[in-house]
């Protein structure tokens, strides 16, 4: 520990640390923007529930928070069913296809790089880059070795069909699940805003505009 504190940084070390710090900051900013994008998308997804609950609230059919949440959740589930049934169906169909074909031709890992979907990608072996002496910390010495270049294997056709379809449908399904969560959040936000915070948003001016009785206003009655 004492030895670590006594380490003197050379000019080169300082430059490396500065570059690493800059890369870290850029990475965090990038993550922040991605998170901001996800938040924006979720807000946009959540606002779609407004179309389904506007009529019952505006026409005064629902007048309390509990009924509003119950009604909005029912609508939310129906919307989710409508949105998610197609990707779920495609995902289920691709899995059934893979199971049936694998039972005929034999099961194989669909992602491997010998006769699976991995044959279409560059694959490196990172286990060889660290040389670990008998005593001491491992040191980075080698570049990772390339163990696969993209090529097509005829026996991997099942994976070529199954993996892309499954990934696309799963992503599609996850987006609908994200929309479901976003709508749930929007429902709770709306319920709080419409029924709970009514008194906080109340202004006498607004009340005056909504009631066509100018003679009842205090300013005129006082006069």
């Amino acid at each position, binding site marked *: 520990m004492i030895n670590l504190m006594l380490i003197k940084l050379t000019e080169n070390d300082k430059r490396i640390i500065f570059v690493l710090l800059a890369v870290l*900051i850029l990475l965090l900013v990038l993550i922040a923007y*991605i998170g901001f994008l996800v938040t924006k998308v979720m807000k946009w997804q959540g606002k779609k529930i407004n179309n389904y609950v506007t009529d019952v609230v505006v026409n005064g059919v629902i007048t309390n928070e509990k009924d509003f949440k119950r009604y909005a959740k029912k609508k939310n589930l129906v919307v989710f069913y409508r949105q998610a049934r197609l990707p779920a169906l495609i995902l289920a169909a691709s899995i059934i296809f893979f199971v049936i074909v694998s039972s005929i031709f034999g099961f194989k890992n669909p992602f491997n790089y010998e006769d699976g979907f991995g044959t279409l990608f560059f694959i490196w072996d990172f286990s060889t880059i660290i040389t670990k002496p008998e005593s001491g910390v491992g040191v980075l010495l080698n570049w990772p070795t390339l163990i696969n270049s993209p090529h097509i294997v005829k026996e991997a056709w099942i994976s070529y069909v199954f993996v892309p379809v499954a990934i696309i449908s799963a992503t599609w399904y996850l987006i609908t*699940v994200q929309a479901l*969560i976003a709508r749930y959040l929007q429902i709770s936000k709306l319920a709080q805003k419409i029924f709970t915070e009514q008194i906080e948003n109340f202004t006498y001016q607004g009340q005056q505009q909504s009631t066509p009785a100018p003679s009842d206003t205090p300013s005129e009655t006082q006069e």
Partner: protein
Amino acid sequence: MAILKNVGKGILYIIALPFFLIVLALTAVMGLFLLIFMFFKSIILFFTGRSLDDDLPEDIQVKELRNGRNVPPTTEPVQDSQDELIVQPYVAPANNTTIEEAVFGHPTYESPTNEEPVVEEPPVEDSFVEEPEDDTPTTPDVPNQEEPLSSIDINDSPVQSDVTEIDIGQYVPHTGGSRFIDEEDEEEDDSGVTISYGDEDD
């Protein structure tokens, strides 16, 4: 400063990401069960003549309310013959709100129906110069708010001005009709202010 804010947000998102992924995964699994449940429910509803898209009781209430509001007597369908049905266009429900109220808010003035009817002056039919029948001055001496602008005596105005000549124009309305006053009809009052009524373009 903004970049530091973004860095902080990035750290927060990194911390929140695992929780979000857990919620997403749990909801995805729950959603699968929900899909299966609703699939069988939709099948049962199909054989009972209903569907998941059927209106909820609240929706039915809204429709009833709307139908109750949207059927004023004027919107009844008009039938020219028994075979042909002409449907009137959609009329927005009357919410006891007039256009003026919608645009300017609820009125604080009296209804125009309570006021005296506005008598419009007849339009000018020709443009010949009409001589006054008597020698009475065309511009009244006493200023009145209800009278036209040409009758204002600037000497009574609280604002003192250096203007000594006022060009009022050709058209001078007065009670009982309109008339054009000749270029020669210039008047000079006691204070030395000259009032001219402009030129005629005939």
